[in-house]
């Protein structure tokens, strides 16, 4: 029941008839005040749209401009002296490529581990016949209210020998309390009880039922949760900052921090001219921002739709 209502506002998916009627009605009844009010609404939203859009376009336009134009601050919303040199500099940088590869691995492995753990706890929690369900739910909820903190967690990771290994990027933080609650609510509310009874009559085991009935019926949920974990893993740098020393293990975000925020970047090494090198280093930052955002933005329309659902499943109290 919940998902039906929850997905409705998802990018205006309402039936056509419902949409048409109020428009005609409101237009007929629009008073002078309403017309002024609607103008204000459109101005407000357009302003917000531009505030979000202009910085993004500025970065994109700069990334295609010439090093001198970028360094001189001459680019606003359209590339000046179009070149691809920024992108070439990005591809020539081996640390970025290593980081890109590492991040892809961390996202793939981390999402898989997180998804498996989440299903393994959320499905039993969704079953009313599980003994100890309330205690376990409480145990998950409490981690949302109170956490061990930085150093106490670090000490656990250290004592497990995970420091400076790929495990440190995948295992700590693998299970999100929020995702567990969303998944348990979904399993409870959208898997019909009759299916379970039928499976019981056929003598199917719990695992068998989970694998062949529950999971195939929960594909939208699994997609939402996988995306939450995947995007979170791709975007975070904190675990890497505290757990990793070996630069060969760095995820992309930490490499980006070194280049973009700490300015540890020589620019093109083949350039002897100091000024040119500095200009190329400036330009490369813009191209790097674009390149590192592309994987997320490629899946973005798909991601946004599902995230919208996720927010709403989460907002339906279970």
């Amino acid at each position, binding site marked *: 029941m919940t998902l039906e209502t*929850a997905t*409705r*506002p998802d990018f*205006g998916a309402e039936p056509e008839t419902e*949409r048409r009627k*109020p428009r005609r009605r409101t237009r007929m009844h629009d*008073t002078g*005040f309403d017309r002024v*009010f*609607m103008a204000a609404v459109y101005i*407000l*939203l357009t302003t*917000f*749209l531009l*505030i*979000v859009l202009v*910085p*993004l376009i500025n970065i994109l336009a700069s990334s295609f401009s010439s090093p001198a134009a*970028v*360094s*001189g*601050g001459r680019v606003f919303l359209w590339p000046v002296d179009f070149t691809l040199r920024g992108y070439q500099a990005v591809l020539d940088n081996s640390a970025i490529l290593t980081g890109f590869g590492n991040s892809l691995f961390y996202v793939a492995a981390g999402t898989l581990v997180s998804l498996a*753990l989440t299903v*393994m706890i959320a*499905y*039993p929690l969704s079953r009313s016949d*599980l*003994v100890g369900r309330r205690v376990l739910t409480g145990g*998950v909820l409490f*981690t949302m209210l*109170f*956490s*061990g*903190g*930085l*150093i*106490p*967690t*670090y*000490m*656990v990771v250290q004592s497990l020998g995970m420091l400076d290994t790929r495990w440190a990027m995948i295992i700590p933080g*693998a*299970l999100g309390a929020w995702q567990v609650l969303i998944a348990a609510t979904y399993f409870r509310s959208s898997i019909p009880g009759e299916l379970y009874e039928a499976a019981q009559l056929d003598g199917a085991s*719990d695992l068998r039922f989970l694998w062949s009935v529950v999971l195939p019926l929960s594909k939208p949920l699994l997609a939402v949760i996988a995306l939450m974990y995947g995007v979170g893993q*791709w*975007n975070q*740098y904190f675990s890497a900052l*505290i757990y990793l020393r070996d630069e060969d293990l760095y995820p992309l975000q930490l490499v*980006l921090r070194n280049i*973009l*925020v700490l300015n540890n970047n020589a620019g093109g090494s083949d350039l002897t001219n100091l000024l040119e090198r500095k200009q190329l280093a400036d330009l490369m930052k813009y191209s790097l*921002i674009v390149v590192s*955002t592309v994987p*997320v*933005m490629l899946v*973005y329309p798909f991601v946004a739709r599902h*995230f919208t659902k996720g*927010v*709403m499943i989460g*907002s339906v109290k279970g």
Partner: protein
Amino acid sequence: MSRRRSLERSLRRHWQLYVLLILPVAYLVIFEYIPMANNVIAFKEYNVVAGIWGSPWVGLENFERFFANPVAWDLINNTLMLSLYGFLAGFPIPIILALALNEVRLRFFKRTVQLVTYAPHFLSTVIVVSMIILIFSPRIGFMADVLGFFGMPTNLLADPDSFRHVYVWSDVWQTAGYSAIIFMAALAGIDPSLYEAARLDGANRLQKIWHIDLPGIAPTVVVVMILSVGSIMAIGFEKAFLLQNPLNLSQAEIIATYTYKIGLLSADFSLATAIGLFNSVINLILLLAVNTVSKRVTGNGLW
């Protein structure tokens, strides 16, 4: 007695469910509950050789050490000011956006605004901070020109007093569109017959928003508000740490970044844990207090 028998029967019939639970429960114990227990070193003088349980107890000495340092009050002040400011700016804007979007009937416009304003939510903190640094750079960024036009200081990132504005408004830039989703969902759930009645009464749009939309989303607003207040002291490490530089540190140092520096850079585990524990406890108290007040006043709460 009967409880025990039901457990036995449940275990025999549904043992597979309990097997499934082994790994996640082990995870929760190892990575959530053992760290909570490790907090005892806040009351000890931790040294690596003696280990967590072997190190000598020192009572509240670590907390006293923290509060004896004048930096402590700056940290608490910075943390509170930053999150309060963030809350005051970041809380109403998504609601206003959702109410405005809800009025729009032009489908194309509505979808465009949604698609564009959700996008920054998916950018990483490193990317957003890099964009801030580039766009506000006095040498190459276009915002420096804009600020100069309005007679404001052009090098915002070197100015301690501007740190909070940069932090908070870039957060609004990144999250306002996405945060509006939950209110859009609440608005979509309002009974259409209420609008019908308002129309017959000759209500204008503003009256409709005031008397139908706002009461309709009030429960959602309360829940979101409790969650935001509950995380007031839990302000994130990632962004503040990246935006810090030696020039703005007097305002940009918050509890989370200070804990990291004391704990991992200076390797004073006990002091860092004490500061972190202080932070978590205040946070928990805030959350419980807001929830209680909200339940009494509005009847809505988290549990």
